[in-house]
Protein backbone atom coordinates (compact mmCIF):
# COMPACT_ATOMS: atom_id res chain seq x y z
CA UNK A 1 0.00 0.00 0.00
CA UNK A 2 1.38 3.40 -0.98
CA UNK A 3 1.58 5.73 1.97
CA UNK A 4 0.63 9.37 1.68
CA UNK A 5 4.20 10.35 2.60
CA UNK A 6 5.58 8.59 -0.48
CA UNK A 7 3.27 10.33 -2.94
CA UNK A 8 4.55 13.04 -5.22
CA UNK A 9 3.84 16.68 -4.32
CA UNK A 10 1.41 16.93 -7.25
CA UNK A 11 -0.58 13.93 -6.08
CA UNK A 12 -0.55 15.15 -2.49
CA UNK A 13 -1.99 18.52 -3.52
CA UNK A 14 -4.59 16.81 -5.71
CA UNK A 15 -5.62 14.53 -2.84
CA UNK A 16 -5.90 17.39 -0.38
CA UNK A 17 -7.96 19.46 -2.84
CA UNK A 18 -10.22 16.48 -3.55
CA UNK A 19 -10.70 15.76 0.14
CA UNK A 20 -11.46 19.40 0.94
CA UNK A 21 -13.93 19.58 -1.97
CA UNK A 22 -15.68 16.40 -0.83
CA UNK A 23 -16.00 17.67 2.74
CA UNK A 24 -17.31 21.03 1.48
CA UNK A 25 -19.80 19.24 -0.78
CA UNK A 26 -20.99 17.00 2.02
CA UNK A 27 -21.43 19.97 4.35
CA UNK A 28 -23.35 21.87 1.66
CA UNK A 29 -25.59 18.83 1.07
CA UNK A 30 -26.25 18.47 4.80
CA UNK A 31 -27.07 22.18 5.08
CA UNK A 32 -29.35 21.96 2.03
CA UNK A 33 -31.20 18.89 3.37
CA UNK A 34 -31.55 20.53 6.79
CA UNK A 35 -32.87 23.74 5.29
CA UNK A 36 -35.31 21.85 3.04
CA UNK A 37 -36.54 19.84 6.00
CA UNK A 38 -37.11 22.97 8.04
CA UNK A 39 -38.84 24.94 5.28
CA UNK A 40 -40.88 21.89 4.26
CA UNK A 41 -42.16 21.56 7.82
CA UNK A 42 -42.91 25.26 8.05
CA UNK A 43 -44.70 25.16 4.67
CA UNK A 44 -46.79 22.12 5.55
CA UNK A 45 -47.76 23.65 8.93
CA UNK A 46 -48.78 26.86 7.17
CA UNK A 47 -50.80 24.96 4.53
CA UNK A 48 -52.56 22.79 7.11
CA UNK A 49 -53.20 25.81 9.28
CA UNK A 50 -54.88 27.61 6.37
CA UNK A 51 -56.95 24.52 5.59
CA UNK A 52 -58.00 24.25 9.24
CA UNK A 53 -58.94 27.93 9.26
CA UNK A 54 -61.07 27.64 6.09
CA UNK A 55 -62.77 24.46 7.33
CA UNK A 56 -63.43 26.09 10.71
CA UNK A 57 -64.99 29.10 9.01
CA UNK A 58 -67.27 26.82 6.98
CA UNK A 59 -68.26 24.95 10.13
CA UNK A 60 -69.11 28.06 12.18
CA UNK A 61 -72.89 27.90 11.60
CA UNK A 62 -73.41 24.13 11.96
CA UNK A 63 -71.21 24.04 15.08
CA UNK A 64 -73.04 26.99 16.58
CA UNK A 65 -76.46 25.54 15.73
CA UNK A 66 -75.61 21.98 16.76
CA UNK A 67 -75.78 20.30 13.36
CA UNK A 68 -73.21 17.47 13.49
CA UNK A 69 -74.41 15.86 10.27
CA UNK A 70 -73.91 19.05 8.28
CA UNK A 71 -70.50 19.53 9.90
CA UNK A 72 -69.47 16.01 8.87
CA UNK A 73 -70.52 16.77 5.31
CA UNK A 74 -68.24 19.80 5.35
CA UNK A 75 -65.40 17.71 6.78
CA UNK A 76 -65.93 15.17 4.00
CA UNK A 77 -64.69 17.86 1.58
CA UNK A 78 -61.26 17.19 3.06
CA UNK A 79 -61.22 13.95 1.06
CA UNK A 80 -60.06 16.04 -1.92
CA UNK A 81 -56.84 16.65 0.03
CA UNK A 82 -55.20 13.23 -0.28
CA UNK A 83 -52.71 14.00 2.48
CA UNK A 84 -55.45 14.47 5.11
CA UNK A 85 -55.87 11.17 6.92
CA UNK A 86 -58.45 12.21 9.51
CA UNK A 87 -60.07 15.27 11.04
CA UNK A 88 -62.58 16.01 13.74
CA UNK A 89 -64.46 18.81 15.44
CA UNK A 90 -64.60 19.07 19.21
CA UNK A 91 -67.63 20.64 20.84
CA UNK A 92 -68.19 20.93 24.58
CA UNK A 93 -64.84 19.17 24.98
CA UNK A 94 -65.86 16.02 23.10
CA UNK A 95 -65.33 14.61 19.59
CA UNK A 96 -68.54 15.79 17.94
CA UNK A 97 -68.06 15.40 14.17
CA UNK A 98 -65.37 13.49 12.32
CA UNK A 99 -63.86 12.56 8.99
CA UNK A 100 -63.92 9.74 7.95
CA UNK A 101 -67.35 9.32 9.51
CA UNK A 102 -66.77 5.68 10.54
CA UNK A 103 -63.59 6.38 12.48
CA UNK A 104 -63.66 5.68 16.22
CA UNK A 105 -63.56 8.61 18.64
CA UNK A 106 -60.58 6.92 20.26
CA UNK A 107 -58.55 7.67 17.11
CA UNK A 108 -58.48 11.32 18.17
CA UNK A 109 -56.84 12.81 21.25
CA UNK A 110 -59.15 13.45 24.20
CA UNK A 111 -57.86 16.98 24.61
CA UNK A 112 -56.24 18.51 21.54
CA UNK A 113 -53.44 21.03 21.87
CA UNK A 114 -55.54 23.91 20.51
CA UNK A 115 -53.39 26.37 18.61
CA UNK A 116 -50.44 23.99 18.47
CA UNK A 117 -49.07 21.30 16.16
CA UNK A 118 -47.14 18.07 16.51
CA UNK A 119 -45.07 15.97 14.13
CA UNK A 120 -45.62 12.29 14.91
CA UNK A 121 -43.35 9.98 12.85
CA UNK A 122 -44.38 10.90 9.32
CA UNK A 123 -47.63 12.71 10.16
CA UNK A 124 -48.58 16.17 11.31
CA UNK A 125 -51.38 16.81 13.81
CA UNK A 126 -52.71 20.32 14.17
CA UNK A 127 -55.58 21.89 16.08
CA UNK A 128 -57.23 25.30 15.86
CA UNK A 129 -60.07 27.00 17.70
CA UNK A 130 -63.45 27.63 16.02
CA UNK A 131 -64.82 31.08 16.81
CA UNK A 132 -68.28 32.56 16.38
CA UNK A 133 -68.68 36.00 14.75
CA UNK A 134 -68.23 37.63 18.17
CA UNK A 135 -64.86 35.82 18.44
CA UNK A 136 -66.04 33.53 21.21
CA UNK A 137 -64.69 29.96 21.04
CA UNK A 138 -67.42 27.47 20.14
CA UNK A 139 -65.30 24.43 19.37
CA UNK A 140 -62.02 23.23 17.94
CA UNK A 141 -60.87 21.51 14.78
CA UNK A 142 -58.22 18.78 14.74
CA UNK A 143 -56.55 17.66 11.53
Amino acid sequence: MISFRNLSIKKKITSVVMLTSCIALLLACAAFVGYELLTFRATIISEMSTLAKITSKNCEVPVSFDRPEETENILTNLSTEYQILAACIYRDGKVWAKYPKGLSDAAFPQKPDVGGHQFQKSTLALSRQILDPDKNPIGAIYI
Partner: protein
Amino acid sequence: MALALLTVPGPCSAAQTIRKPETPYEVRAVFLYKFAQFTEWPKEAFADENAPFVFGILGKDPFGKDIDIIKGATLKGRKLEVRYFLKVKEVKDCHILFISDSEEHWLPEILKALENTSILTVGEMDRFVERNGVLNILPGRDKRPYEINQAAAEKARLRIHLSLLASKNR
Protein backbone atom coordinates in the same frame (compact mmCIF):
# COMPACT_ATOMS: atom_id res chain seq x y z
CA MET B 1 -91.70 16.87 22.35
CA ALA B 2 -92.01 19.35 19.51
CA LEU B 3 -90.17 21.98 21.48
CA ALA B 4 -87.40 19.57 22.30
CA LEU B 5 -86.63 19.40 18.61
CA LEU B 6 -85.59 23.03 18.65
CA THR B 7 -82.46 22.12 20.49
CA VAL B 8 -79.85 24.78 20.25
CA PRO B 9 -77.15 24.52 22.86
CA GLY B 10 -75.97 27.66 24.55
CA PRO B 11 -72.75 29.25 23.51
CA CYS B 12 -71.26 27.31 26.44
CA SER B 13 -67.68 28.42 26.65
CA ALA B 14 -68.62 31.19 24.23
CA ALA B 15 -70.35 34.28 25.50
CA GLN B 16 -69.66 33.75 29.15
CA THR B 17 -72.87 35.43 30.22
CA ILE B 18 -75.03 32.91 28.35
CA ARG B 19 -75.52 29.51 29.90
CA LYS B 20 -76.97 26.40 28.30
CA PRO B 21 -80.72 26.87 27.70
CA GLU B 22 -83.08 24.58 29.53
CA THR B 23 -86.65 25.71 28.96
CA PRO B 24 -88.33 25.98 25.52
CA TYR B 25 -88.30 29.79 25.58
CA GLU B 26 -84.69 29.90 26.73
CA VAL B 27 -83.93 27.71 23.70
CA ARG B 28 -85.77 30.20 21.49
CA ALA B 29 -83.96 33.16 23.03
CA VAL B 30 -80.53 31.56 22.52
CA PHE B 31 -81.50 30.50 19.01
CA LEU B 32 -82.40 34.09 18.13
CA TYR B 33 -79.20 35.34 19.76
CA LYS B 34 -77.17 32.99 17.57
CA PHE B 35 -79.24 33.80 14.51
CA ALA B 36 -78.44 37.47 15.07
CA GLN B 37 -74.74 36.64 15.35
CA PHE B 38 -74.82 35.33 11.80
CA THR B 39 -76.91 38.18 10.40
CA GLU B 40 -75.59 41.57 9.32
CA TRP B 41 -77.58 44.75 9.85
CA PRO B 42 -76.92 47.91 7.82
CA LYS B 43 -74.79 50.49 9.61
CA GLU B 44 -77.74 52.91 9.70
CA ALA B 45 -79.68 50.47 11.87
CA PHE B 46 -77.59 51.68 14.82
CA ALA B 47 -77.71 55.27 16.04
CA ASP B 48 -73.99 55.27 16.86
CA GLU B 49 -71.05 53.05 17.76
CA ASN B 50 -72.26 52.62 21.33
CA ALA B 51 -75.91 52.00 20.53
CA PRO B 52 -77.21 48.75 22.02
CA PHE B 53 -78.50 45.79 20.08
CA VAL B 54 -82.23 45.76 20.80
CA PHE B 55 -84.29 42.59 21.06
CA GLY B 56 -87.93 43.62 21.09
CA ILE B 57 -91.01 41.68 22.05
CA LEU B 58 -94.29 42.95 20.64
CA GLY B 59 -97.55 42.02 22.35
CA LYS B 60 -98.07 39.47 25.11
CA ASP B 61 -94.65 38.33 26.31
CA PRO B 62 -94.28 34.55 25.95
CA PHE B 63 -90.67 34.50 27.22
CA GLY B 64 -91.24 35.71 30.76
CA LYS B 65 -88.13 35.20 32.88
CA ASP B 66 -86.63 32.90 30.24
CA ILE B 67 -85.42 35.93 28.32
CA ASP B 68 -82.99 36.63 31.17
CA ILE B 69 -80.68 34.06 29.59
CA ILE B 70 -79.60 36.60 26.97
CA LYS B 71 -80.07 39.79 28.97
CA GLY B 72 -76.84 41.68 29.43
CA ALA B 73 -74.98 39.62 26.83
CA THR B 74 -72.99 41.32 24.09
CA LEU B 75 -73.80 40.91 20.44
CA LYS B 76 -71.66 42.31 17.65
CA GLY B 77 -69.69 44.18 20.26
CA ARG B 78 -72.86 45.89 21.54
CA LYS B 79 -74.80 45.44 24.72
CA LEU B 80 -77.96 43.43 24.15
CA GLU B 81 -81.09 45.06 25.49
CA VAL B 82 -84.57 43.55 25.70
CA ARG B 83 -87.46 45.94 25.23
CA TYR B 84 -91.19 45.33 25.38
CA PHE B 85 -93.70 46.99 23.08
CA LEU B 86 -97.47 46.93 23.25
CA LYS B 87 -98.12 48.60 19.91
CA VAL B 88 -96.14 48.64 16.67
CA LYS B 89 -96.10 52.45 16.81
CA GLU B 90 -93.85 52.19 19.87
CA VAL B 91 -91.27 50.09 18.04
CA LYS B 92 -88.16 52.19 17.61
CA ASP B 93 -84.41 51.47 17.43
CA CYS B 94 -85.15 47.76 17.39
CA HIS B 95 -83.12 45.08 15.57
CA ILE B 96 -84.97 41.84 16.26
CA LEU B 97 -88.68 41.98 16.94
CA PHE B 98 -90.46 38.90 18.22
CA ILE B 99 -94.11 39.30 17.28
CA SER B 100 -96.20 37.44 19.80
CA ASP B 101 -99.14 35.21 18.88
CA SER B 102 -101.38 37.76 20.59
CA GLU B 103 -100.71 40.10 17.63
CA GLU B 104 -101.51 37.60 14.87
CA HIS B 105 -104.82 39.26 14.12
CA TRP B 106 -103.04 42.54 13.29
CA LEU B 107 -100.01 40.94 11.62
CA PRO B 108 -100.54 42.48 8.15
CA GLU B 109 -100.77 45.99 9.67
CA ILE B 110 -97.73 45.38 11.89
CA LEU B 111 -95.56 44.12 9.05
CA LYS B 112 -96.77 46.97 6.83
CA ALA B 113 -95.74 49.49 9.49
CA LEU B 114 -92.27 47.90 9.72
CA GLU B 115 -91.85 47.68 5.95
CA ASN B 116 -89.09 50.25 5.53
CA THR B 117 -87.09 49.36 8.59
CA SER B 118 -84.12 47.03 9.11
CA ILE B 119 -85.88 44.94 11.71
CA LEU B 120 -85.63 41.18 11.69
CA THR B 121 -89.22 40.24 12.35
CA VAL B 122 -89.69 36.92 14.10
CA GLY B 123 -92.87 34.98 14.62
CA GLU B 124 -94.04 31.57 15.61
CA MET B 125 -97.28 31.24 13.73
CA ASP B 126 -98.77 29.75 10.58
CA ARG B 127 -97.97 31.49 7.30
CA PHE B 128 -95.74 34.08 9.01
CA VAL B 129 -93.21 34.20 6.18
CA GLU B 130 -95.97 34.08 3.56
CA ARG B 131 -97.26 37.29 5.09
CA ASN B 132 -93.80 38.91 4.73
CA GLY B 133 -92.35 38.18 8.13
CA VAL B 134 -88.62 37.43 7.94
CA LEU B 135 -88.15 34.49 10.29
CA ASN B 136 -90.69 31.96 11.49
CA ILE B 137 -89.78 29.53 14.24
CA LEU B 138 -90.98 25.99 13.60
CA PRO B 139 -90.27 24.00 16.74
CA GLY B 140 -91.84 20.85 15.29
CA ARG B 141 -89.15 20.54 12.64
CA ASP B 142 -86.32 18.17 13.11
CA LYS B 143 -83.31 19.61 11.31
CA ARG B 144 -84.03 23.26 10.57
CA PRO B 145 -86.60 24.53 13.00
CA TYR B 146 -87.25 27.75 11.15
CA GLU B 147 -88.19 29.22 7.79
CA ILE B 148 -86.96 32.43 6.24
CA ASN B 149 -88.48 34.84 3.77
CA GLN B 150 -85.31 35.81 1.95
CA ALA B 151 -87.03 38.54 -0.08
CA ALA B 152 -88.32 40.17 3.10
CA ALA B 153 -84.84 39.95 4.64
CA GLU B 154 -83.30 41.57 1.58
CA LYS B 155 -85.94 44.31 1.63
CA ALA B 156 -84.99 45.01 5.24
CA ARG B 157 -81.32 45.07 4.10
CA LEU B 158 -80.44 42.19 6.36
CA ARG B 159 -77.65 39.87 5.27
CA ILE B 160 -78.28 36.42 6.64
CA HIS B 161 -75.44 33.89 6.58
CA LEU B 162 -75.72 31.55 3.60
CA SER B 163 -75.63 28.43 5.76
CA LEU B 164 -78.72 29.66 7.57
CA LEU B 165 -80.48 30.40 4.30
CA ALA B 166 -79.86 26.91 2.99
CA SER B 167 -83.23 25.79 4.27
CA LYS B 168 -86.61 25.83 2.63
CA ASN B 169 -86.76 29.52 1.76
CA ARG B 170 -89.29 31.67 0.07
